[in-house]
């Protein structure tokens, strides 16, 4: 059976509430991670991102200085830092569709609505590690491919010129097994 070795992953948690940081830290250490860095606001989070070069970023949405959405947009600036492709999990107390879409369009990799649980966080991280998505760069967007599924009877506008299909990526799990 294939499993994630959390000991090999470095996390950055950006969350202004100390209790929630404690919960996330407890969960990540419980999963087996030994490198969990923390920041209390968007500015400190950006600084920590540049300094620690984490493998996965977990950020809250609502934070002082600048929020998780702005932080994501800064990280996703191509060429602006060492790793604009870093997986970003957005935590939020908001779960309305427009919020999820806004986070997706800012370039987050996964969205996790509060309340969080060990299982929900674990599943997001598992998906990030096992099913990495390619990135799309266009005039108006840079981030993970927002198309996750193929809709057979789609009749809406086609916004991509050229290859407009969902980009099939063999899950990493299959690659490892092969």
């Amino acid at each position: 059976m294939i499993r994630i070795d959390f000991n090999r992953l470095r996390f950055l948690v950006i969350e202004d509430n100390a209790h929630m940081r404690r919960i996330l830290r407890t969960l990540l250490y419980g999963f087996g991670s030994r490198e969990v860095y923390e920041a209390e606001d968007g500015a400190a989070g950006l600084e920590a991102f540049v300094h620690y070069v984490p493998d996965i970023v977990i950020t809250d949405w609502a934070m002082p200085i600048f929020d998780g959405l702005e932080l994501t947009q800064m990280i996703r600036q191509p060429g602006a830092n060492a790793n604009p492709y870093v997986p970003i999990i957005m935590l939020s107390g908001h779960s309305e569709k427009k919020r999820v879409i806004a986070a997706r369009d800012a370039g987050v990799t996964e969205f996790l609505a509060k309340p969080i649980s060990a299982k929900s966080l674990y599943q997001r991280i598992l998906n990030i590690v096992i099913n990495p998505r390619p990135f799309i760069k266009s005039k108006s967007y840079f981030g993970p491919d927002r198309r996750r599924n193929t809709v057979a009877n789609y009749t809406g506008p086609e916004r991509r010129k050229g290859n407009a299909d969902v980009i099939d990526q063999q899950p990493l799990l299959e690659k490892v097994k092969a």
Partner: protein
Amino acid sequence: MAEIKHDAPDVTKFVDHEVIVPPNRLKKALKRAGISADDRDPLTAAEEALEALSVQFESWMEEECTALDEARRLVHAQGLTDATQQTLFRAAHDIKGHGSTLGFPMAADAAGSLCRVIEHAADLGRVPLTFVDQCADAVRAIIRERDDVNADETAFELAKSLRALADDLVGGAGNTDAPAEAAPGPPLAPA
């Protein structure tokens, strides 16, 4: 086909977009389970750790409540300025976001009603401060009375009535300048 550098992304260009496959830095984290005796299920381990931490949740909620009370006190003392509004919203938003995780879902709902009104009321100056008090008092009561026999039912009714008040305030019954698309409240499942 050009040789791909190990640490360079693979870029395919189209007319109006590029598809970029970055180097996979996370594959280092995959391993075969069950090799050593120390190979515990990570999810079980995390859940147990969270369970051990949960003894502190009630005191944490008390702290969040105190922050909301202080924010409410500031609003009464200084009025609903940008600063006091932000402080109040942040305190309520924290309870809304964390209350369920800490075991107080109805407190989260009550705080959520306050958040909705702060965010969506067309003119916050016309929202009665009694609504702020009702929300803060409800959150405090839900936490204080959690060991009561009828705690769940009481908490549910409190949250429900606040939701109805918020619907009135945001939907326009108590606010004639409400926008056309006020935020509707999601359905409230019984606790």
